[in-house]
């Protein structure tokens, strides 16, 4: 039954990688559903990872013990929100180009966080290794189920939150008035406006939720997989999350499938390294996979072609209604 254990372990580490992607992709989803194209996910996640690492570092030195990583997560959220407000203000209020502001956020977030790390840690390119990071927390009873328990119910608290995030978001988006309004603002802001929905307000909400989730996603990476913050902590996860959101067709359940798949690709990379035969596999193709699949899906080569929310990418201008 060795291979079953292997699969359970692989699934377990897949979900660890998936966690950050779920948060990132759901962040992107809320923003794009409200009509704001969020390329800045990578930057928001970098901000989240940075905030979490720094706050946890100070909290653990101040003797907060196991509470420290949770303070870290709150700080990560704050940093994510800060960048999302930048995106919201410039693109929704000032009607700046969303793609460009997204690129700017990516450039600024990476530069500012690394700059601050160097200032705080006297020129070192990464924070010191955190001692009080999140620990794996087995769910009582459920984790005792053979294989399945190891695969699903013996993992980090952030991963459990990520599991819950999907159904909650699906409910919020599709079963509540709030979700209907948020989606309508992203599909046809003019029509939404005429029936009295405050387009500006809902877009702000969408983008801020995006910042919150991306911040948690970044924090999850810093507090579970890397235990510190450096320029490689996020390195492209935001873009994979963006790809997962598209691959999941802007739908929470689709996102779950896509992130699991892409998380698996990441876990597999670390997993097969343990074996000798893996030397012959061109790893580059495994790295490439999320992006390649996303392109194929978009081009309609896999399934039918998909389009995102109709109004995503365009600032709302009431005078053009």
């Amino acid at each position, binding site marked *: 039954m060795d291979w079953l254990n292997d699969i359970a372990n692989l699934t377990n580490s897949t979900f660890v990688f998936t966690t950050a992607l779920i948060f990132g992709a759901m962040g992107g989803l809320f923003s794009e559903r409200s009509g704001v194209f969020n390329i800045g996910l990578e930057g928001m996640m970098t901000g989240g990872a940075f905030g979490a690492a720094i706050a946890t570092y100070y909290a653990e030195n101040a003797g907060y013990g196991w509470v420290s990583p949770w303070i870290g997560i709150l700080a990560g959220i704050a940093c994510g929100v800060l960048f999302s407000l930048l995106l919201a203000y410039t693109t929704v209020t*000032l009607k700046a180009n969303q793609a460009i502001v997204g690129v*700017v956020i990516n450039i600024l977030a990476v*530069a*500012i966080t690394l700059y601050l790390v160097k200032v705080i840690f006297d020129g070192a390119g990464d924070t010191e290794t955190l001692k009080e990071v999140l620990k794996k927390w087995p769910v009582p009873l459920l984790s005792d189920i053979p294989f399945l328990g190891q695969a699903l119910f013996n993992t980090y608290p952030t991963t459990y939150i990520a599991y819950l995030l999907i159904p909650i978001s699906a409910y919020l988006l599709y079963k509540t008035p709030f979700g209907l309004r948020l989606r309508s603002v992203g599909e046809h802001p003019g029509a939404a406006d005429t029936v009295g929905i405050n387009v500006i307000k809902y877009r702000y909400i969408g983008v801020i939720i995006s910042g919150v989730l991306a911040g948690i996603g970044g924090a999850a990476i810093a507090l579970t997989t890397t235990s510190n913050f450096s320029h490689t902590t996020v390195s492209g996860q935001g873009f994979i999350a963006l790809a997962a959101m598209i691959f999941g067709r802007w739908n929470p359940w689709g996102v779950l499938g896509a992130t699991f798949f892409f998380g698996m690709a990441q876990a597999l990379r670390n997993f097969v390294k343990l074996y000798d035969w893996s030397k012959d596999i061109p790893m580059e193709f495994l790295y490439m996979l999320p992006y390649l699949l996303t392109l194929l899906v978009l081009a309609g080569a896999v399934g039918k072609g998909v389009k995102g929310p109709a109004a995503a990418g*365009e600032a709302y201008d009431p005078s053009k209604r």
Partner: protein
Amino acid sequence: MSDNQSVKKWSRIFVANNIWVPIIAIVLGLICGAIVMWIGGFNAMEAYQALFDKVFGSKYDIGETIRTITPLLFTGLSVGFAFRAGLFNIGADGQLIMGMTGATIVGVKIDFLPWIVHAPLTVICGMLIGGLWGALAGYLKSSRGVNEVISCIMLNWIALYLSNYLIRTVVLKPGTQRSETIQESASMSIGWLSTFMDNARMDWGIVIGLICTSLFYIILWRTKQGYELRAVGFNPEAARFSGINVPKNMLKSMMIAGMFAGLGGVFEVLGVFHYQVISAASAGYGFDGIAVALLGGNHPVGILLSSILFGVLTYGSAGMNFSASVPTEIVRIVIGCIIFFVASQGLIQMLYKPFMARREAKRKEAA
């Protein structure tokens, strides 16, 4: 929103009619940088002083600054050219990487040609591969309706890993993480100029870059093809009604944009490093190219000037780090702020509109 509206909107943002916006953006960007340095406990004036001392300190530094400017000029032209046709080429990064890889492979593998044939051949191969990579995004946009921003982001990463794979399997120097050195016959370095500039890495890249800058102007404003491209950029719907083949023009503009970016990569390999390394992340020239094009108002002269500015900032950051011990990231922050201010022109307009209005009122009074 329809696709066309967005294109219209973009061209309006990018074709900056106002010279004040970039200038105010540069000043504000530098001020933001100073504030960030002040927060970090550094002396901003000293740091900026160190930056300029570094850049204009010696012949070697001037030469190396020109080397830094070259890829920025190429990616700036690339992004700017696509903008003119209403497309946002965020994929200059990937196109540059593919250009590098093409040049590396042709430069290493072919070893029987004289310089006069081999060097131009290598340049053209790299350029074409970059162009094809751009055309791929153009094809996805024009025939499949895939938003070029998304496809370009994906293509950037695919290019990075594909290039790593090709270097590792085709031209790897055994025991290292980089390719073999290119053949002497493919080198685009200018030996005598390098000697004159105290061994700065001088190459033909900047010359070709200047030629491309003029070509940028000639193609767009002096040919029928360029007229069509710009018409598509201004208003694709109107262009279609007047009989212009919009998809074909999108494809062409992305192809040419890709060729510009590819050339940037070609000269990084043939002129500067003479090999390509396997890297985990891209150098980010493509994203700097967005900054260059945006600040330069997508005009060839503007692009040239802003590539010089960003080249100076980037190269000078090493000096800031050395003599004022400011982390080099500060320059990325300044560049980010500058694009931010150009992109959100609303902010700048809020600043200068009151002045303009007063001047306007005075003029009316006088008349």
